[in-house]
């Protein structure tokens, strides 16, 4: 029996086909170099592709030192967000490759000069990505266990192997090392234990987990908002500034209710209570509706025609969640949250959730 679930294997093998063009301001030869075609790991980071890209464009670059960055239609891409999350977040509508008749690719531009230091944190190549990853892992460990001693006390060889297996896409090697961190809180606490974890118990290792388990899940939420008059996701305009995206780094506390499964919908309610009615009775009503309409998409479940919304006493119409996307898929809202966490988490033990919210039109709003 292998390490990891089948869903985890799909997540680790997930890839985004990229078509990377060199920015025109850095082309010094004629004709322009053709774009580089790269299959980028979903769970990876854009700067890790530079060793593949640099030799491809080096003969046409102007003089100067390299400061590599990427943009999508003019929006600088934050290198510390996994590539798959950037894609899910920024390509919501017609940009989805499989909607097009032409070759399905995500078109990006690469720059080797003019780093936008006022917008992006500095990146010094692989070392910066590695430590961003380790610090996220440390933060996740603190959330899950109440301390990050297991990450801090990792031996140098283990730390190196953890990073190498991650950057090489070696899921089994990575899971073997990360199992020493005792971060399998969700799987062990899940009411529906369909997954068995094979943790190697090392007798020489001090166990800092156990009593400190907090029941909290590391979650990063990326929120796009669209205007009220945009009903079709195909018509969502392109984002030209990161200020239009809200970012919540907020743990989810999984409430244990006897006999009741904590669902993805419950998790979203704790993160975005504004998008759900305040009255508890309405919450229960919506929960029942969602369970009954299990086969329907989120759009129809929370449609405007819902009589509960019409009877709302609030002055403004509540915001409506149009889309929830994790690892490129749109899970059903009544799926057990513990399954989502156990199978769709990124290797640094964060669950990245992209949400598209339709908000009421605000005449005073200035973008």
């Amino acid at each position: 029996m292998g390490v990891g679930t089948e869903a985890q294997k799909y997540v680790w093998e997930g890839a985004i086909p990229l078509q990377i063009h060199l920015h025109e301001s850095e082309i010094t030869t004629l004709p322009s170099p053709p774009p580089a075609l790269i299959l980028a790991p979903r769970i990876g980071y854009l700067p890790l592709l530079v060793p593949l890209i640099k030799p491809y464009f080096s003969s046409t670059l102007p003089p100067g030192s390299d400061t590599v960055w990427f943009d999508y239609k003019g929006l600088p891409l934050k290198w510390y967000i996994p590539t798959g999350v950037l894609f899910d977040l920024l390509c919501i509508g017609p940009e989805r490759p499989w909607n097009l008749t032409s070759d399905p690719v995500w078109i990006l531009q690469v720059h080797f000069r003019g780093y936008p230091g006022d917008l992006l944190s500095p990146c010094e190549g692989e070392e910066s990505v590695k430590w961003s990853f380790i610090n996220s892992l440390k933060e996740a460990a603190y959330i899950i266990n109440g301390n990050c001693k297991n990450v801090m006390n990792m031996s140098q060889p283990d730390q190196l192997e953890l990073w190498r297996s991650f950057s090489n896409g070696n899921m089994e090697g990575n899971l073997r090392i990360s199992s020493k961190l005792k971060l399998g809180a969700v799987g062990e606490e899940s009411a529906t234990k369909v997954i068995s974890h094979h943790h190697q118990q090392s007798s020489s290792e001090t166990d800092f987990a156990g009593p400190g388990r907090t029941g909290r899940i590391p979650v990063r939420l990326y929120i796009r908002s669209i205007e009220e008059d945009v009903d079709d996701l195909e018509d969502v305009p392109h984002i030209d500034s990161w200020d239009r995206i809200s970012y919540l780094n907020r743990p989810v506390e999984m409430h244990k209710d006897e006999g009741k499964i904590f669902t993805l919908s419950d998790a979203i309610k704790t993160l975005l209570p504004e998008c759900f009615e305040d009255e508890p009775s309405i919450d229960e009503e919506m929960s029942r509706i969602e369970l009954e309409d299990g086969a329907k998409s989120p759009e129809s479940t929370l449609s405007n025609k819902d009589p509960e919304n019409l009877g709302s006493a609030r002055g403004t119409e509540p915001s409506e969640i149009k889309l929830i996307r994790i690892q490129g898929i749109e899970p059903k809202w009544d799926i057990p949250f513990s399954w989502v966490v156990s199978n769709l988490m990124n290797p640094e033990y964060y669950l990245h959730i992209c949400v598209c919210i339709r908000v009421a039109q605000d005449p005073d709003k200035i973008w």
Partner: protein
Amino acid sequence: MGFSSNWDGTLSPNDFNISARALCEKWKVTYPVFPPWAWVPCPRPFGVTSRQVEGYLSLEGFCCPKSIEGEIDNGSSSKEEATCPTEEEAVDDATLVQRNDRELHLYDLHIVRSSSYRVPALYFRGYNCDGQPLALDDIKKDLPYHSSKILKDSRWTFMTQEEHPYLNRPWYALHPCGTSDWMKLLFDNEASVTENEEIVQQYLLSWLSVVGQVVGLRTPLEVFSKKHNAMFCSSV
């Protein structure tokens, strides 16, 4: 959240707000010539009403003590380990304006509550008096000696440039992963004899007395009540 013997040194969002306002008021009363701490509310950005108002504390235009000290002592590098002179507190704007031969370094400090670690975290950025951001090397020189040493030894885990949680821009941040442990130690003796409410009021002031020194911001002892002076004097 009740403070008891098994309190873990963390701070709830509501208690953070209470402690933040206490810091603003005590700082303003005790240190009127210094730039004030101000509360910056942050409503939820996508336009809906939130039940809980979030925000952070901000101190703008804090003048780096070393740049003042450097002028007084002709920028001697041997003074790097010396403590700041007491006349630092007496420097006023008129004096600063007259010294145009050396660039002043100004800093904005923000105290943000970390949802992950459930403790405050310090974010800061440095700039010249004309608003240009300082380079990392300049900031390193401005740090007190012991902070520069720690930064050299454990560069990636002590202080890094990362995204400000509310401003979407790169700021320098001190990593808060050990904060709850030493805050618990700091209040351990007090918890059994002091009211919970007073601990909440005192939390950020005590936190700042430790963390502020990392970036050269000293918390005057006067902001603490008299019975706390004994604790801090004995610990020094």
